[in-house]
């Protein structure tokens, strides 16, 4: 049997949607038995949500005030302790998982595979390299634990419907005090989460200003979509960093992606290549975004956006 430990990401008492995708990834490992680890302040709601995910065998709940807000240096020794006896330790390829999992791997003296796209067997998997210009098939060592981050855009979330037991765990681990949380700014509001939204409208540099960037909100509202941005738009200060879609931002796989005024630099395309349908609106007919768009519309976005909104 392959025992798999999935580390749960959560905030404000809610399980992050990426966890259901990590469980989906874990289920593709042959003969897997899946445990979800919830490290939280109290974590009851989060553990219950994790226990309901289909395919989860049990949930370990480590309640400790030090566990929120999450700090990798504090969580890593606890996760390493929980990981004993597990063949795989998985976390999402979000900034939470990217920060935490290598620290866990080092404590376990285990190799890490980042951004797993698929398990071909219990010892073979696929992952992107070179900004996803190459897909590597990687063979894992036999008889050694492996840590991995899961490229969430590659997996469909498992549904809720399970009912795994939640086991409270007390860990005898010394936690460092040398890392301290100060603050976080998050301005998401009521919009769907960019990482997991079914529809995303993104704006690029062609919007021209932070004020104009807001023009895509109307379309996003009509579509019930999350808002994203190209790196150029973020660098220019039109949109905050957390909206950046692309190799160095978020890699997403929505049903519908609408790129407004985005030329389509390679690093941006890397972030959207798993989108089901891509729509591009750009005044430059030569823009690379049209090479990957299912539907391209050439023209002035400032006149096209209100037209499209009216038709929806």
């Amino acid at each position, binding site marked *: 049997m392959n025992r798999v430990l999935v580390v749960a990401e959560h905030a404000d008492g809610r399980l992050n949607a990426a966890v259901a995708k990590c469980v989906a990834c874990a289920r593709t490992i042959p003969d897997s038995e899946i445990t979800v680890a919830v490290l939280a302040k109290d974590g009851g709601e989060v553990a219950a949500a994790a226990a309901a995910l289909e395919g989860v065998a049990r949930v370990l709940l480590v309640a400790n005030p030090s566990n929120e807000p999450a700090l990798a240096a504090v969580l890593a020794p606890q996760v390493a302790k929980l990981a004993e006896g597990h063949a795989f330790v998985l976390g999402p390829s979000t900034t939470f998982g990217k920060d935490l999992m290598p620290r866990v791997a080092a404590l376990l003296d285990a190799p890490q595979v980042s951004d797993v796209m698929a398990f071909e067997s219990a010892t073979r998997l696929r992952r992107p390299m070179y900004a996803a210009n190459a897909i590597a098939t*990687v063979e894992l060592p036999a008889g050694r634990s492996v840590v991995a981050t899961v490229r969430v855009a590659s997996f469909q979330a498992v549904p809720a419907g399970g009912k795994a037991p939640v086991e409270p765990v007390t860990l005898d681990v010394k936690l460092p005090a040398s890392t301290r949380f100060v603050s976080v700014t998050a301005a998401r509001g009521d919009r769907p989460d960019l990482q997991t939204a079914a529809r995303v409208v993104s704006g690029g540099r062609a919007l021209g200003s932070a004020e104009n960037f807001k023009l895509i909100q109307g379309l996003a509202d009509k579509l019930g979509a999350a808002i994203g941005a190209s790196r150029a738009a973020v660098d220019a200060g039109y949109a905050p960093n957390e909206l950046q879609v692309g190799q160095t931002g978020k890699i997403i796989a929505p049903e519908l992606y609408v790129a407004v005024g985005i030329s389509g630099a390679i690093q941006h395309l890397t972030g959207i290549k798993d989108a089901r349908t891509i729509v591009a609106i750009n005044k430059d007919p030569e823009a690379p975004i049209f090479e990957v768009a299912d539907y391209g519309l050439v023209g002035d976005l400032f006149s096209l956006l209100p037209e499209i909104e009216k038709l929806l």
Partner: protein
Amino acid sequence: MRRILVGIKRVIDFNVRVRVRPDGSGVVTEGVKMSANPFDSIALEEAIRLRERGEADEVLAVSIGPTEAQQQLRDALAMGADRAILVKADAGLEPPAVARTLLKLVERESPRLVLLGKQAIDDDSNQTGQMLAALWDRPQATFASKIEIQGEVARVTREVDAGLETIEVDLPAVCTADLRLNEPRYIKLPDIMKAKKKPLDVVELASLGVDPAPRLKVVKLEAPPQRQKGVIVKDAAELVAALKQKGLV
């Protein structure tokens, strides 16, 4: 001496369109321009700025790689690093081995801060800084977009999925640079001349007692599947009609 150690990896230049070899054994490197990993250049720039602000006395640039990586270290010296060390190693050293190698140098050089890029743009692992911090048993501040040092504490703003997170870490610590930390300066010709006089030591990986053996095996590389080019619609009405027909809106 208040020292900052900066890691510099030699990678295929970020402007090069990377191509997979037809036999799947790797990517094409013949005649391809090599450069410092862009995130490492950002880390180096930040280290130099911290020294210029009086928060450090020396910037030490370290690369672990082939003899040719001396070129990237010379560039680092020209940018403003004070000295450099090349640890000669074959390509393909995995992040845990890189972290163990850096730990050996950290033990020798006792930096107050280690600044690395958040990831290298070749293997895209995003592991080395976090692993070094764990092995060193020190704090980590990854994906930094702002670093302020106040006494023995660094206050670091991090680019996280939720937005911008600020944490405080006791020094010494490991910090990894994200895109918007700074814009690296251009190297000027006189600086290239001056850099030739700066010390660049070369040591063998074996002399540090680090086991370079990989634990993972890359069996093959493949080019990713290409998306099919779609259609150009003539106006907003045709676009909305097409999306409605596919049940997307």
